[in-house]
């Protein structure tokens, strides 16, 4: 029988969707039976107490978790988030229930062996409950006690060659899409850039000195599978400068119904014959496509990389050959100042190891500015809003570009700098006084 009665949680299980409550109960049972004979290093009934405290929170309509703490592993200011229960006598199993963030492998590629090893470690030294994956992409270990933290960290780093992720006012765990490993749309090697920057900025990842969190995300193409444009302070989206490559024969094969559109993704139902006019050309947001003598034509100058045509006809249309990255800055979720999408700051940049341009011309100048000017708990996007895009352009030393403009201006003031005005601002006061008395 369950340790705590949980009628309100039980009710959650009755819905149509798989329930986390069922998962928790299953894990509670696995730990109670302990068929694998694990020498649990934290209370065996941790999950039952977790269910109990959750039920109590539902009953009271208030949380029973205390927020934050001093716990961590030596030398790291992130990766561990202290969690304590404010009813430790009633629920001793979750008196300490710290979270660990484990830096996920690039593109979340791992072997089942690696997963098993992580799970074995977590069954032994933690609750066995995980979050695959947190919103930043980390593998999240939920619930352990303070004495286990260093043990887990030692085993992760020494046995599994695995680091902790970022939390707090740090660079957060960089996250990328599956990239060129599996996807032909990827315009640059997202894994390599993600890994390279993770290694380069270890200090920023583990030792907090930023005003608040800072996130990098890497999307190989404008399909934006990791949603970097909406969820990262610095978003790297693959793009191309030349033309979309067209295979006319394959276009004809799509029209003729020989190749299923969208890679066959919509084959669960009969949608009728493929209509290139209705399903591709008319849906182009910039109206830059048309048919001419039975051939598909594209005015590439007007293309805004919506990716629709390429997604529908991947065997006929392909990303261009002159590839690189577009960099956008300042996206964030609505914690303080409302949600914000990223603003374009670098329209195009080549992506070549060792990525010196990205590091020295983009990332580091932005950090220097934000670290000096950012207020406590102010995200980059909020600083950009407060001081203006003009200031960011100055920090980066780039020329203003129409592509950076998001919306018509709402600020009626123009503040000129002295060197932008012919003759400057200085005046000869004596000359002025000749014509203007005090």
């Amino acid at each position: 029988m369950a340790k705590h009665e949980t009628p309100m949680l039980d009710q959650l299980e009755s819905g149509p969707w798989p329930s986390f409550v069922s998962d928790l109960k299953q894990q509670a049972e696995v730990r109670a039976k302990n068929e694998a004979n694990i020498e649990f290093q934290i209370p065996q009934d941790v999950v039952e107490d977790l269910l109990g405290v959750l039920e109590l929170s539902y009953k009271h309509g208030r949380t029973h978790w205390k927020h934050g703490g001093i716990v961590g592993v030596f030398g790291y200011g992130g990766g561990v988030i202290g969690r304590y229960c404010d009813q430790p006598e009633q629920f001793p199993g979750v008196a300490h229930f710290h979270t660990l963030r484990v830096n996920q492998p690039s593109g979340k590629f791992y072997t089942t062996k690696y997963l098993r090893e992580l799970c074995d470690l977590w069954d032994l030294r933690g609750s066995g409950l995980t979050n695959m994956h947190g919103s930043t992409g980390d593998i999240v270990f939920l619930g352990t006690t303070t004495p286990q933290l260093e043990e887990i960290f030692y085993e992760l780093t020494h046995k599994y060659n695995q680091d902790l992720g970022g939390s707090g006012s740090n660079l957060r765990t960089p996250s990328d899409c599956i990239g060129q490993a599996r996807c032909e749309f990827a315009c640059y090697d997202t894994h390599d850039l993600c890994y390279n920057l993770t290694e380069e900025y270890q200090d920023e990842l583990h030792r907090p000195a930023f005003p608040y969190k800072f996130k990098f995300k890497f999307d190989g193409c404008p399909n934006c599978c990791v949603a970097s444009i909406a969820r990262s302070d610095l978003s790297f989206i693959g793009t191309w400068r030349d033309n979309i490559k067209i295979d006319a024969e394959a276009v004809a094969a799509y029209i003729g119904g020989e190749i299923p559109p969208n890679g066959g993704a919509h084959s669960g139902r009969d949608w009728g014959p493929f209509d290139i006019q209705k399903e591709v050309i008319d849906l182009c947001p910039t109206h830059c496509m048309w048919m001419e003598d039975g051939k598909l034509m594209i005015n590439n100058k007007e293309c805004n990389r919506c990716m629709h045509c390429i997604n529908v006809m991947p065997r006929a249309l392909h990303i261009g050959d002159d590839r690189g990255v577009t960099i956008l800055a300042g996206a964030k979720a609505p914690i303080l100042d409302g949600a914000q999408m990223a603003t374009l700051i670098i329209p195009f940049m080549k992506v070549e190891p060792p990525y010196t341009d990205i590091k020295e011309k983009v990332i580091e100048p932005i950090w220097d500015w934000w670290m000096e000017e950012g207020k406590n708990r102010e995200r980059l996007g909020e600083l950009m809003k407060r001081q203006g895009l003009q200031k960011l352009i100055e920090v980066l030393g780039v020329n203003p570009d129409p592509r950076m403009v998001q919306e018509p201006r709402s600020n009626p003031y123009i503040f000129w700098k002295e060197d932008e005005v012919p003759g400057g601002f200085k005046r000869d006061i004596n000359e002025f006084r000749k014509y203007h008395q005090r």
Partner: protein
Amino acid sequence: MDYEEAKVKVTEELTKKLKTKSKFYFNDLAKILGEKPRAAKKIVNQLVQDGVLEYWSSGSTSMYGLAGTGKQAHAEHED
């Protein structure tokens, strides 16, 4: 700034404020040190390594305090 000098300065300033608060933002420390953030970070990191300062994290924001100060460490039996 010399490390030992910085250590004395940070300890003194933070001790003075202990009555009202025990946790400080990185910016507060940079201001006390009178250094740019990157230079201040080196000193602050060393102070943490040496156990003079300790991190406090809410999960979203990180702060610094003199090691062992504040209520929480004792309340959570972490001291």
